[in-house]
């Protein structure tokens, strides 16, 4: 009975999208913070190589966050 009145496909897609977006963006943003903090510490320790890598990770993660947000809003507006 429940199977016929519930569109499980839509429901599962909602669950999957929520997990990917909710956890994914938070994890990506955590890498932004981690990279920024490590960059500051490593630069202070005069280690430019690892500092550059940390900054690159931070930048890449920031791009993932921005793209995730923009993608989410585009998906919302195109149905």
């Amino acid at each position, binding site marked *: 009975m*429940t199977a*016929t*009145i*519930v*569109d499980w496909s*839509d*429901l599962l*897609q*909602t*669950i999957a*999208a*929520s*997990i990917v*977006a*909710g*956890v994914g*963006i*938070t*994890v990506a*943003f*955590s*890498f*932004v*913070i*981690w990279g*920024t*903090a*490590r960059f*500051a*510490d490593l630069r202070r320790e005069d280690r430019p190589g690892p500092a550059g890598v940390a900054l690159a990770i931070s930048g890449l993660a920031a791009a993932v*966050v921005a793209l995730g*947000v923009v993608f*989410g*809003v585009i*998906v*919302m*507006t195109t*149905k």
Partner: protein
Amino acid sequence: MRAVSSDVVLVIVVATALAFDFTNGFHDTANVVATSISTGAAAPSVAIGAASLLNFAGAFISISVAATVANDVVDAAVITPTIVFAGLVGATAWNLVTWWFGLPSSSSHALIGGVVGSAVAAAGFHAVLAEGLVGKVLIPAILAPLLAFVVAGAAIGASYRIIGRQRPGVVTRGYRYGQLISGGLLALAHGTNDAQKTMGVITLALIAHGSLGAGADPPLWVIASSAAAIALGTYSGGWRIIKTTGTRIIKMDAVQGFSAQGAGAAVILASTHFGYPLSTTHVINGGVMGAGAAKRVSAVRWGVAGNIVTAWVLTLPAAALIGAAVYGITRIFGTGALGPLIVTLMSLSLLAAVFARRARRGAPVAVS
């Protein structure tokens, strides 16, 4: 004469729906900004101003939820504008009762409960579309807060592992900036899901009145007026609810605030895409509790959380009962505009008395 009477009822319904939308913003949106305020990410005035603007913008980005409310919950063929009116009064009354006691409930479920109750009172249980009510309202209503709880818990677990050994000052500052994004997304999500319920109800009334064909989308004026009403409601206050959600459930740090808001925004936006009418109240509280429990189970004040869950469980049946009772009262005065007019006057008088009593006690009615 009958056409004029029907027009009068439609005008009353649209005004009542927009008033409900205003109380929705007043009552619900506090949940959206509570987390940012509680962690110190934004000053209350800034958070509320930004949430108002984003609520307004959010109302324009989707109409899937409006379509669900207008077409999938009750049978539009047996609905009259008076039934919609009674449902709206039931929902608004329940919203004000929970606001009075400082309890977050669900404006969305109050609205759907009110309309279902008045429809059953008017036309019997066959007026309810069980498939839509169960599949698109009840099951998502149960799943959404649990999903937000799990997503926030998983997100914060991963975040603490990533940023674990970094200096707390940098981390807190960073996540406070991040909350400008997550809080903004949550406000946008709230605008798009909640304003659409009002759009759906007005569209249902327009279909019942014969102004729109069955299955029609909301006209632009309906979208714009619903957006404006919820934004104005948001700007006008809801401070009692902020206190409950932001500080009484759990004392949060900025990482938890970001995770809770991110989880809430993700769940609401994904659900909106599939047309599920959710409540940000349910979802953000699920996210807040998940973010708290993942760090330390005892950090969550489960007693307050229990009170909130009780209010959620009561919302649908309570609003349905009030909606049914209001429909019964309107029918005492016939099928024309007299019943809705008298109920409107009675409601406004009761509201004035309640607000006057509160003002006499010296408690703030609203803070702008």
